[in-house]
């Protein structure tokens, strides 16, 4: 493993990557340690259950390990990892979308998903989260990266492999679709609620 005391951050990463490619497990563990907070935060936007989230986070680093020799240092390492994470999340969403089981909040709860306690103070936030999860995978990815993660259109284009104009179009359509889904769920919840509660 390289000596980290006298090197810049980029050089350190470069050295760690070179060592990891040569089979140094400690170097790869150090790369994970440095970037896991960012990657876990990103995949947590998409993972439905704690088990899915753990598997997604592991998949990102396993795929990164397999592709380390293809990293060209033309973008920051974290961006490269985010790109892999985005692709992993998109594949995951597509698998879920084919099954459609996530449309029911009860099914989510049965699968072990519990909303964060901070959100439960405002039920509309939970409705929005559900509406977001009912969008098609591509729209959901773009909207999550843009609205929730605060990435620029350029970064999202880099992560997803789309053109910048395509990202803008998808973000706009996703926003409209989110609005429609949100209204639909809100209306159905109002109808389902007993009259004395909605008063």
């Amino acid at each position: 493993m390289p000596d980290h005391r006298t090197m810049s951050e980029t050089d350190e990463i470069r050295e760690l990557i070179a060592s990891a490619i040569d089979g140094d497990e400690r170097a790869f563990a150090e790369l994970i340690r440095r970037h896991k907070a960012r990657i876990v935060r990103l995949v947590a936007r998409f993972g439905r259950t704690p088990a899915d989230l753990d598997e997604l986070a592991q998949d990102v680093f396993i795929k990164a390990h397999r592709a380390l020799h293809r990293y060209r240092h033309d973008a920051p390492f974290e961006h490269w990892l985010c790109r892999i994470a985005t692709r992993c999340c998109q594949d995951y969403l597509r698998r879920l979308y084919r099954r459609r089981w996530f449309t029911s909040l009860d099914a989510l709860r049965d699968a072990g998903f519990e909303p964060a306690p901070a959100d439960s103070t405002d039920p509309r936030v939970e409705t929005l989260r559900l509406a977001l999860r009912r969008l098609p995978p591509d729209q959901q990815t773009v909207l999550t990266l843009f609205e929730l993660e605060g990435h620029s259109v350029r970064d999202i284009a880099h992560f997803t492999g789309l053109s910048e104009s395509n990202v803008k179009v998808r973000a706009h359509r996703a926003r409209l679709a989110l609005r429609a889904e949100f209204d639909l769920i809100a209306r159905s919840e109002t109808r389902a609620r007993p009259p004395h509660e909605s008063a």
Partner: protein
Amino acid sequence: MNPPDPLDPLLAALRNAPAPDADRIALGLETRVLARLREERALAATWLRRWSLVLGVGTAACAALLVNNLLDLSAAGLDAACTGHWLLLGWF
């Protein structure tokens, strides 16, 4: 000027919401990833050994049959070739 979208404050709340289980997942992630990598390497090595065995035995069998046909060996010669296969199989 466009009126503010009522979804904006909700999106902001969702943006700032703590990621459920993220801290717990991040804890010890490197250990789990390395364990999975080792597991995958071990599995790949097992498969490589199995395929080497299959290919090795297959090649040896073909070579023995070819030699048998070329030299028109007797039954005893064929037995010797078969013994050779089994020795090779044992070596793998």
